């Protein structure tokens, strides 16, 4: 029988996760004898993911790799999955340690935290006001990145973070929040959106307000979706890791753990196929790779890939 690995995402239809699913299929083809179940709720809620997890448990899948909408609420359901012998890992947006065997960060959190503020600061040599547009207030990864960012603020004198708002990973809400930021802070210089939905919406809002070039929208986004913003000047640069690689790596890890080729424990190294190896820290989390910066010089090369 094929090994069945479920890739559970925050919500169906988001470009980032669609790309991750592509990577998962790539890994499955490489491994052979692996079936990928790509699933998730239609809105970004924990209850929706729990129902999905329950039906995956019922189907007796071999592994679940999840990007969580809530780090805590999913724990009981995922624990149950592990009790029934299912391998559970989280990736992208993590679950509390008791609810998974390991967590795969797309990149190291420190690096991302530093990266997003650096992207803004590089274009503000004189210093200035920046604001953060996050996803849902409960999104684990965004919160950690912002936390890491705040830790290194000392390295960027003159840069002031004036506000943090939440767009809930909804394009329209993010758009309005970005508008609100521009109204409240007329001297705003940059918006940092460490979310692929938020960054596009913020760029659109800046463009519509006629402030492209004046306010720099940066953060984490997909080249395909951000090409227009780079072109208009609303965004000077942004970063992202490759979501295809992320889906690929998560699948590889899930497979390795499920077959017993590797065990998740602090200090362990788990193979990720063409992505090399991930080394787990004391909370059983590890980082995949460094984020990559995109700007006018390289966007055209990547915008058709993901």
């Amino acid at each position, binding site marked *: 029988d094929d090994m069945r690995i479920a890739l559970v995402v925050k919500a*169906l239809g988001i470009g980032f996760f669609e790309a991750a699913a592509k990577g998962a299929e790539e890994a499955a083809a490489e491994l052979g004898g692996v079936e990928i*179940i790509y*699933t*998730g*709720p*239609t809105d970004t*809620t*924990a*209850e*929706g993911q*729990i*129902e*999905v997890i*329950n*039906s995956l*448990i*019922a*189907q*007796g899948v071999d592994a679940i790799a999840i990007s969580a909408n*809530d780090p*805590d*609420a999913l*724990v*009981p359901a995922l624990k*149950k999955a592990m009790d*029934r012998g299912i391998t559970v890992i989280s990736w992208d947006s993590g679950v509390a340690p008791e609810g998974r065997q390991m967590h795969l960060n797309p990149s190291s959190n420190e690096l991302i935290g530093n990266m997003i503020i650096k992207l803004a600061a590089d274009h503000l040599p004189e210093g200035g006001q920046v604001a953060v547009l996050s996803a*849902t*207030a*409960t999104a684990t990864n965004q*919160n950690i990145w912002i936390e890491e960012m705040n830790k290194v603020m000392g390295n960027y004198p003159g840069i002031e973070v004036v506000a943090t708002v*939440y767009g809930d990973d909804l394009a329209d809400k993010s758009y309005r929040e970005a508008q609100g930021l521009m109204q409240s802070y007329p001297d705003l210089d940059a918006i940092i959106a460490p979310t692929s939905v938020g960054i596009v919406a913020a760029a659109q809002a800046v463009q519509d307000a006629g402030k492209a070039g004046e306010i720099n929208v940066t953060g984490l986004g997909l080249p395909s979706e951000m090409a227009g913003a780079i072109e208009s000047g609303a965004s000077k640069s942004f970063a992202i890791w490759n979501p295809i690689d992320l889906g690929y790596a998560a699948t590889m890890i899930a497979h390795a753990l499920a077959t017993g080729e590797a065990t998740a424990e602090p200090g362990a190294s788990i193979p990720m196929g063409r992505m090399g190896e991930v080394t787990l820290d004391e909370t059983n989390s590890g980082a995949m790779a460094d984020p990559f910066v995109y700007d006018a010089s390289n966007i055209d090369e990547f915008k058709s890939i993901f």
Partner: protein
Amino acid sequence: MSTTDRFIPDRLQSPLERRLKSWESLLLLVAIAIFIANSFASPYFLNAWNLSDATFNFTEKAMIAFAMALLIISGEIDLSVASIIALASTAMGAAVQLGAGTPVLILVGLGTGLLCGAFNGFLVTRMGLPSIVVTIGTMSLFRGISYIVLGDQAFRGYPADFAFFGQGYVFWVISFEFVLFALLAVIYGVLLHKTNFGRAVYAIGNNPTGALFSGIRVARVKFILFLLTGLMAGVAAICLTSRLGSTRPSIAFGWELEVVTMVVLGGVNILGGSGSIPGVVIAAFVMGLVTFGLGLLNVPGIVMSIVIGALLIGVIALPRLWKMWRG
């Protein structure tokens, strides 16, 4: 005065006969059909543990649906139930931060539910406001308070024994929640169908003016129904919070419409006056079976909701279309 020997029988149709021809039996057939279809569609369906897990998809909503059924039969509605869950869960979370133990948490959960129910009941029965608008307002208000308290934070750290309510099993695969669901079904069934109170609920729903003119304390009965609905939201809040092990203000978002859908699918007239608890119980199973069965086939939740939406309109439309077609 003139007593003729004309005899009027008590009933023409035996209760059993009536039951067989009822909406509930039709719905039961639908439920059985879905059950059979599911067992053919997925090899994982007929498995005790899986079926037991599936009940979690509806038990909490059904608990509220029982009280909501009575409320809708009486001609009112409460759209704030999901927000009451959020507020009750938030209150319990806050109590945990103050070091409360499980018994206190239960009291806080139920108390918050009752308080919210009383607030709705006050606005509707005392101030004479339409319940649909009032509860759209309190729906924002109650959840809004949770957001004010919690913002982007979460409450966690519930005591270990608190997990029993949403995750515990009473016997083999029979979960505590399922037992509670069954127990509440019986309690509400008896309350609606076997007591004076239930009779008053039907009378009010059929004709509130007539009921008032017959000496029924209409406002009091409706107030109690709002209290009960709030209380059940409190019970559901305890179960859901226990099951999730944490509280966010967005908890149970959108449940009010699922609860109302369950009640209407169960044959309760949205305009009041008719409906039964067995109907709601079967509707809960139908919705649970549809979502679980399609879930096993990895059909996205939104597609399941098409099925539920179509069932909702279809079950009311089909008999009417049939009647129109027959002339």
